[in-house]
C-alpha cells in the first residue's frame, strides 16, 4: 500500500487521501489507487465494475454486500478498501467461474430461493461462508451446548439443521421473503 498524493515525505504522506492497493478479486490481481474513504463495496462496484455485491443500506444492516474475504464472509460496505491490501475477495461472480454454478448457486436456482434478486449475491456468499463456518465447528446461538471440551484439536463440525441455517443466515435480509426457499437451498448443500 502506497500513498499516492504527496512526495514521499512523511509529512505529505500524512495528508494523502488515496493509496495504491492490490485486491485479488475473483482470482485476478487488481491494482488501483483508492480514496481512503472508499469502502471495499464501492471499490468493487464503482472502480472495478464488480456489481454482484449490492448496496442495500451501506451501513452493515442488510447483508446485500456480503462477500468472502480471505475465505470469510464479510460486509463489504463496512471495510475501508485501503485496509485490505493483498486480500483475496470472492464475489458471486467469482463463485461461478467458467460458467459452472457453485453448488450453492445451483441450489438457489433449483429451490427458487430468490425473487427480485437484489439480496441474492449476498445471500449466496453468506451461505458459502456458513458452510465453512459450520464445517470448522463455529457455534451459533442455535447450536446446542456440547460437553465441555478439554485439550486441543479441532472442534467437531456443526450439523446445519434448518434452525441453524435460519439463525446463521439472519444477517441477510430478503424483503421479498424468500426465506423458506433460501433455508431449503442451503440445506440441500449442507453435508
Amino acid at each position: 500500500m502506497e500513498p499516492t498524493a504527496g512526495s514521499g515525505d512523511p509529512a505529505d504522506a500524512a495528508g494523502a487521501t488515496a493509496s495504491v492497493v492490490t485486491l485479488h478479486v475473483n482470482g485476478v490481481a487488481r491494482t488501483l489507487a483508492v480514496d481512503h474513504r472508499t469502502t471495499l463495496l464501492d471499490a468493487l462496484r464503482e472502480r472495478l465494475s464488480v456489481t454482484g455485491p449490492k448496496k442495500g443500506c451501506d451501513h452493515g444492516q442488510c447483508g446485500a454486500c456480503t462477500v468472502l474475504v480471505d475465505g470469510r464472509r464479510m460486509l463489504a460496505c463496512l471495510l475501508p478498501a485501503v485496509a485490505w491490501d493483498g486480500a483475496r475477495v470472492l464475489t458471486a461472480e467469482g463463485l461461478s467461474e467458467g460458467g459452472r454454478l457453485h453448488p450453492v448457486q445451483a441450489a438457489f436456482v433449483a429451490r427458487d430461493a430468490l425473487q427480485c434478486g437484489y439480496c441474492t449475491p449476498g445471500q449466496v456468499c453468506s451461505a458459502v461462508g456458513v458452510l465453512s463456518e459450520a464445517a470448522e465447528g463455529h457455534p451459533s446461538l442455535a447450536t446446542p451446548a456440547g460437553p465441555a471440551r478439554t485439550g486441543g484439536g479441532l472442534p467437531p463440525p456443526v450439523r446445519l439443521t434448518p434452525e441453524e441455517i435460519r439463525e446463521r443466515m439472519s444477517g441477510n435480509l430478503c424483503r421479498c421473503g424468500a426465506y423458506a426457499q433460501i433455508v431449503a437451498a442451503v440445506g440441500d448443500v449442507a453435508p
Partner: protein
Amino acid sequence: MTGAGRAAGDLERREAREKVTGRARYAAEYRPEGRLHGRPVPAAVARGRIASVDVSRALAVRGVVAVLTHENAPRLAAPQDPTLAVLRDDRVPHRGWYVALVVAETPEDARAGAAAVEVVYEAEEHDVVLRPDHPGLYTPEEANGGHPAVRERGDPDAALAAAPVLVEAEYRLGALHNHPMEPHAATAEWRDGGLTLHDSTQGGNAVREVLAGMFGVHRRQVTVVAEHVGGGFGSKGTARPHAVLAAMAALHTGRPVTVALPRRDLAAVVGHRAPTLHRVRLGAGPDGVLTAVEHLVVTRTSRVREFVEQAAVPARVMYGCAHSRTAHRVVALDVPTPSWMRAPGEAPGMYALESAMDELASATGVDPVELRLRNDTDREPDSGRPFSSRGLAACLREGARRFGWEGRDPRPGVRRAGGVLTGTGVASATYPVLVNPSRASARAEPDGGFRVAVNATDIGTGARTVLAQIAAEALGVPPEAVIVEVGSTALPAASLAGGSAGTASWGWAVHRACTELAERLAGAGGRVPPEGMAVDADTRGEADAEVPWARHAFGAVFAEVRADTVTGEVRLARLLGVFAAGRILNARTARAQFTGGMIMGAGMALTERSSIDVRFGDFAERDLAAYHVPVSADVPDVRAHWIEEEDPHLNPMGSKGIGEIGITGAPAAIGNALHHALGARLREPPFTPDRVLAVLRRTPPG
C-alpha cells in the same frame, strides 16, 4: 392441489442464473462514459422556507462538479404529482424533502459535498401527530383506488343499537415502510436531445410520460429501462424524485449521472403506508350472524399531496349484512407523503376487521372459522353484484384441515409451558382483481423461434417466466421456444407492476398477440415467411371494460404463536395460508409471492414499527437497524397452498392477482393467535415486548 396447470406449472425462473451469479444489472449499475454521482441533501426542518443556501464550500470540495438548488436547477414544467416538484421553490413541506443535489466525480466526493452545503431555514411550527380528534380532519372526495370515502347501507345505527351482540373496538396501526432491498436509483444520460434513464421503477411507461412532460420533450425522445428491479412493494409504482433529480443533473452537467438514494432517505421521499386509526362496530345475533358492520378509518396525508389509505374498503366486500357504514377521514400534516405499500387499504383494513371478527367469535362462543363461514355471501354486500367466484369458505375449510384446527380448545391463556403461552388464530384474506390495458407484440421467426415483447417490469415476481408460459400455451409450443423481452419503453407500452395486476394485464395482451399469431400461422400452413410474421395486440377497451361481477381473490391465514410472559417476546411458530386466486399459472413463483406477502404481514404484526419524532417531525426509524423487517429466524415455518378455482369472468388465463393478498390476513391471524395465547388482546401492532408486557401487567393470564 399443487396448481400444476395447463401452462406447464413449475418452471425455473428465467433470470435466476443471472441473479445468483451477480450478473443481473440494476439501475445504478450502468456506467456510461463520464458518469457522475448525485447525492441529494434532505431538508432539516419539518416546515418552513429556505432562507438561503450557500454552496461555496460544497463547490470547493474536490471532485464536486455542480450543486443544484432551487436557485439554479433547470426550470421544468410543473409535474402532476407534486412530490416530484423538487428544487422548484423555497418551500419545505416536510423534513427530508430534497433541497439540493450535489453532483461529483465519485460517491465519496458527492457525499462530502452534500455535507458541505449550508442551508439556512426559516422554520415554522410543525404539526405531525395524527389524533382521532384532530381539528383538521375532513372527509375526502375519495380514497385511494377511486373508492368513495363514505358508503352507507340500511340503518347501521339502529341495527347496531338493536343487535343482541355488539362488538366495539378500536385498533391503531403505525406507519409502515416498503423498504425494497434495492434503494431507489436512476442513471440518466442525455444525448442528441433524448434522455435514456435506467430506473428502479415498477413501470417505465408512466415514468416516461412524467419525465417527457416535465422536461418538455416528446415521449419518443425518452427511453426508460428497468431490466432488473430490486423490489418495490408500491414504493416504485410511479416516478419518484430520484429519477427527476438524475435527469435534471445530467441535463445541467451534460454528463451521465447516477442518483442512488441512501437507505436513510427512503422513508421521507418514496412514500410509506400512512398510520390508520380504526373504529369497528359489529352487530350480530347470538349465533354470530352479522346484522351490521361499521368501520371508520382516520388517517393522515402530507401537505404535498392527498393520499387516503382505503382501509375501510375491505369491510364493503367481506361479509354479508344488511346494514353497514364504512368511512374515511383524513388530515393533512407536515409529514412525508404517504403512498402505496403492498395491499394499500386491504392490509390495515383487514387487520382491524378480522381482529374484530375474532372478538365477535369470543363474544358469541362461535368458533372463529365457523363464524366466518356463517357470514359468507355470494354477493358483494356493498355493490350487490355477484362475485365472479368466491373461494373464502373453501380456503377456510382447507386451511383448517391442513393446520389441524379441529378440536382446538377455544379458551384463551391456558396453554402454558413454563413462562411461555401458546395460541392459534385465523383470519380471512382478500384482494381485488385489477387489470389494466396493455400492448404486446408476438413474432414468429423463420428459424422456428418466437419472440414476445411487452414493457412488463419484473420486480421479483417472475414476469419473464410466466409470460413465456402464457405465450407458449397460446402458440402451442414449449416455453423454451419463446424469447420474452421486457423492461424497456422501447417495447410495446404496458401497465405497471402494481395492484397485483401485472400478470393479468401483460398476459392478456401477450395471449391475444400469440393467439392471433398462431391463427395466422395456421392460415399460412405453418410456414413462416423469410422476414418473419408479427402481430401486435392492444387490450384497451377489453381489459378495462365494465363487468357486472365483483371480482376478488380470497384466502384464509392460520397462525400459531408463542408468547414469553417474562420477556414479552412473541415468536411465530407457524403461519399457513390457503388462497383462492383463480388459476395459478406458475406454482413456484406463485408460492413465493404468497409466502413473501405473508412474511411481510408477519413483520407488520411483530417487528415493523415506525414512529414520528415529534420534535424533528420525521420518522425516527429510518434505517434497517431501527426499522425491523423480518429475518429468516423470525419466520421458521411459513406455508402457502391454494385451491383450484375456475373463473371464466377474469381474463383469458383465468388468473387473479397474487402479489398482495399474502400480506392481508396474516397480521390479524397473528394478533388473534396472540389473544388466544395470552387471554388479553393487543390492538396496536407490532406486538413488541414492551406492549405485550404492558398488557400482561393489566390483565395477567390464567
